[in-house]
């Protein structure tokens, strides 16, 4: 078989980090080739080099066995490479067709956009691969799954023969993933080559022909799918036997701690209903997981629970005490700790140093503050303690937080919030972007808190994470809790279907 892409001796360094270390990879034409590895193993860096977004410090790239220089994305496009990024590169305020054609718009009279051609061509490619996309919808109005197909359309429009998909299933439900795999297989049947980047071993085993494993910036091995297994891949990937463990069942479930009754809220801008009669309770010693696709009210729910989202109706209580109308500070002081969804935006002040971040939100509480004056000694000794107890890797407590790794940044948040919260922890996407070791640490810490009798509310876009940690699982869809079930009585497929609103129409086969 012919080789469509070969990368030889690719090395790329960011500051002190060696992101790719003499990487060699060979991709055969017409195959589905996967690259697996942990977060930070260098997969995305390698693909960005292949697509011309980064420049390798050294190494060569061959397309169809000819050496090429890919200095920018247009060179990649010329060489028949298309990339579907993990974070879509779309413009929400423009239509599907405008997004698909961006940069290569059909023209009439040399100067003007040919709108008919724009929509027509998009429609035609969509039909050809049965992607079921409407060219004239605005991107901001379509779902995540369809946005991904728009990205695929973009690559196909540019006549890509090699499609790179970077973590394409990260935000999809099982049903949407099924559809994606169908599309991928269709593309393969049409002679396209697929480079599939993921760390989900199950789907890798389901879809690939060949698998390349990366760890710490190096290629560990390339194997045929038929010669390997999930367990073998995991070992190659991490270097030891780890798969994230399912948490042991709750030991002792006690009284109701956090209770939400009929929470409803509207968005500020368009007065759209973002929460609709949301009710649930979280008991001492349990983890309630809230599963849902991004943008179904999770953000608003968390903001409501800490007093940042105005409710049109409903009641929140903590240990039976009504806390609905308290201010953020009072809510937090009443005993709610929050691990926010974006640590860099909401969780930390990254230009503060470590010790300044360890009492964010507690700057008026004892022992850090007396009569409005800060007690820097108390701050420092508390910071030292947290650094020690949570194994936060930092040169000292006056080191700027922006210079720490994501895992250590997250540990600061977890340490602070656990220290702060006597009763309830709300964890939103607590392991986003962390490697397996750090993920493991955060999971363990949450389960530890659960077993200490705290109530843990977990919101995650990763269904896998919800399944691993939860005692019970609630599914949120369009601002409504559509179902609350015990973890043991459900499956990922059932949950996925509910996350899509109960019905899902697969793309035509």
């Amino acid at each position, binding site marked *: 078989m012919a080789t469509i892409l070969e990368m030889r001796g690719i090395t790329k360094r960011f500051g002190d980090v060696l992101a790719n270390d003499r990487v060699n990879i060979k991709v055969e034409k017409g195959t589905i080739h996967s690259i697996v590895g942990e977060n930070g193993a260098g997969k995305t860096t390698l693909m*960005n080099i292949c697509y011309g977004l980064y420049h390798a410090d050294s190494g060569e790239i061959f397309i169809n066995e000819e050496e090429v220089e890919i200095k920018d994305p247009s060179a*990649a496009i010329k060489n028949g490479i298309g990339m579907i990024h993990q974070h879509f590169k779309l*413009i929400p305020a423009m239509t599907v067709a405008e997004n698909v054609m961006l940069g*290569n718009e059909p023209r009439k009279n040399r100067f003007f956009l040919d709108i008919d051609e724009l929509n027509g061509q998009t429609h035609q490619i969509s039909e050809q691969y049965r992607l079921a996309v409407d060219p004239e919808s605005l991107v901001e109005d379509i779902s995540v799954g369809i946005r991904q197909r728009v990205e695929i359309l973009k690559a196909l429009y540019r006549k890509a023969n090699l499609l790179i998909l970077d973590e394409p299933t990260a935000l999809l439900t099982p049903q949407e993933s099924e559809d994606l795999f169908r599309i991928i297989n269709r593309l393969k049947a049409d002679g396209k080559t697929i480079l599939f980047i993921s760390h989900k071993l199950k789907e890798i085993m389901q879809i690939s022909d060949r698998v390349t494993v990366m760890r710490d910036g190096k290629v560990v091995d390339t194997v045929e799918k038929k010669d390997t297994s999930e367990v073998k891949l995991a070992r190659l990937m991490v270097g030891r036997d780890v798969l994230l463990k399912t948490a042991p069942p709750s030991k002792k479930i006690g009284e109701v701690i956090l209770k939400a009754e009929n929470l409803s809220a509207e968005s500020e801008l368009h007065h759209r209903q973002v929460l609709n009669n949301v009710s649930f309770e979280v008991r001492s010693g349990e983890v309630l997981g809230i599963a849902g696709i991004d943008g179904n009210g999770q953000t608003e729910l968390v903001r409501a629970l800490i007093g940042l989202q105005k409710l049109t109706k409903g009641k929140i209580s903590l240990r039976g005490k009504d806390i609905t109308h308290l201010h953020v500070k009072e809510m937090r002081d009443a005993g709610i700790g929050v691990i926010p969804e974006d640590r860099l935006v909401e969780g930390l002040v990254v230009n503060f140093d470590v010790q300044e971040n360890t009492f964010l939100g507690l700057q008026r509480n004892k022992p850090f503050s007396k009569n409005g004056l800060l007690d820097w000694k108390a701050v420092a000794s508390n910071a030292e303690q947290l650094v020690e107890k949570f194994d936060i890797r930092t040169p000292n407590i006056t080191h700027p937080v922006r210079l720490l790794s994501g895992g250590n940044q997250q540990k600061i948040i977890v340490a602070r919030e656990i220290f702060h919260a006597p009763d309830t922890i709300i964890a939103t996407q607590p392991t986003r972007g962390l490697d397996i070791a750090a993920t493991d640490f955060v999971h363990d810490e949450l389960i530890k808190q659960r077993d200490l009798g705290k109530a843990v509310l977990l919101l995650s876009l990763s269904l896998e994470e919800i399944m691993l940690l939860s005692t019970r699982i609630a599914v949120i869809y369009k601002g409504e809790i559509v179902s609350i079930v015990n973890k043991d009585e459900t499956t990922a497929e059932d949950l996925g279907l509910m996350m899509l609103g109960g019905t899902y129409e697969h793309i035509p086969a």
Partner: protein
Amino acid sequence: MDFLEVIKSIFTLSLAYATVRICISIVFAGMGEMITERSGVFNMGVEGIMLMGAFTAAVVAHFTGSPWIGLLAAAVVGVLIGLIFAFVAITVKANQAIAGLAIYLLCVGLSGYLLQVLFAHGGNSPKVETLPKIHFGFMEHIPVIKDVFNDQSVLMFPALLLPIILYIVFYKTPWGTWLRAAGENPKALAVVGKNPITIRYIAVLAGSFFAGIGGAYLSISQTSIFSEKMVNGRGFIALAAVIFGNVKPAGVFAACMFFGFMDALQFTLQTVIPDQYFPREVFMALPYILTLLILGGFIKRSSGPADISNPYEKESR
């Protein structure tokens, strides 16, 4: 005085003429800034660029005797200053508001300094030749039109055409799409092989080009002299017009006209109402106060480009 009489003496056709006359410079600056902001860059140095444009036009017109060469020079100087801003704001990724402020201060200082160096007296340049005014024979017989549009500066035509041309460029051509894309999500452009940095540079330079012309209009067409305080906040008002007009050609044009009208009204009021009844300082402060009232009170949150004021960062880990 009879109240109705006063009103009548204020709202005359010459007020309409003055509105058009005054709004021309604001339209140039506002349209230019709209291009810049559509690409995702906020250039607060417009006021300064206008000032340097006015200065350059007058100086070059003085030494060459030709206001046309002055106009050209003003546009060139505008582009050069725009280049400095673009480098600092786009390439160095400095805070755009502060870079704009720096450009403003720099231009105030530079025009003042060079004025002293060249003419060594007062805050004014010598009187210079102005651009021609256009008089159409056929308009003489059309009431209202003849009073408002006849005998305006030759620059009125490009000023009135600019919004239409920009509407077509923005929404009917590929370049407009790229410009808007650069302001909405520059990464989306980068991955299809178009460099958002180039597009933002071009947008900033185009914006500065028009700001330079808007400034030149003040010194070699609206008046025939450069004075240090000549721009007097018009650049900032143009910025307000862009916000007020939602960064869209028709809206920004309407906003520029409105602000031009406020300024014309202010001048009229100063002459119609004697100083002892009402202090002229109140009228002079009026455009600024009204602009702020409008910005603060009447507009909803504007829906400009999503990525405005953010420096474009290449993919980073």
